[in-house]
């Protein structure tokens, strides 16, 4: 793995942020139907996947991308549960509390998955 550097972190921050903002702007300009589809564009995952290409090539690139995708598919499953939970909690607890609790759930389940798969 490449050494950790400020520039490497900054590139990832800018790429991730830009990917989300660009997909949002495209979604807003596409009209209701196509915009609704594009609003759920997996920008963060694709930005993370593309930045793997900055550090690796060949077999290493493929194996690191598989590892990232493995985690991302678990993450997307957790996201669906979080969205369902948020839809349930928000009208009952208010949006601030409901969103905070849904994000707390995201963190707890993510850590549980890490512990289960690692140990």
């Amino acid at each position, binding site marked *: *793995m490449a050494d*950790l550097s400020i520039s490497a*972190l900054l590139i*990832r*921050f800018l*790429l*991730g*942020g*830009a990917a*989300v*903002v660009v997909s*949002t*702007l495209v979604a807003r300009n596409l009209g209701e139907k196509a915009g*609704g*589809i594009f*609003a*759920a*564009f*997996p920008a*963060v*995952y*694709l*930005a*993370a*996947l593309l*930045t793997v*290409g900055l550090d690796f090539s060949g*077999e290493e690139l493929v194996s690191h*991308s*598989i*590892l*990232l995708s*493995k*985690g*991302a*598919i*678990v*993450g*997307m*499953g*957790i*996201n*669906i549960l979080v*969205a*369902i939970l*948020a*839809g*349930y*909690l*928000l*009208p009952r607890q208010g*949006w601030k509390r*409901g*969103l905070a609790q849904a*994000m707390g759930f995201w963190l707890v389940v*993510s850590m549980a*998955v*890490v512990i289960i*798969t*690692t140990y």
Partner: protein
Amino acid sequence: MYKDLLIRFTLGGAAVMISYLITVLSPWKILAGIFAAFPAVMITAVLMMGIASGSKKAAKIANGSVFGMIGGVVCVATVWTVLQVSGNWALSIVLGLLFWLGSSIIVSSLRDRLKSVRENKSSIKVNIHSGIQVRHK
């Protein structure tokens, strides 16, 4: 508008950056992938709707995002499968995008059908109810 974009930029950028940090520093490689799937767009959309229109509408955004996330799962599953089968990184991304688009269109059409079926059912109920009231009068 700009506040919304700024929050999205910060959350999206932070998610990719943290995913990278975890890959380099921690032994938990699966956590890097989980952060790569961080729901930055959903959180911002719910947050902004909560500020602007309250909890009920924000909850609708959260419920609606479930359909969009199915496309995300298809995209990642495609990339993963293509990488394992062919080992071709660029092809996996291209096919991942194509399958994301295809599945999102299918899910969106199914969602629209579901909505219209629900609306038809509720309008039939209203008609029956108002019919009964007219007879009583």
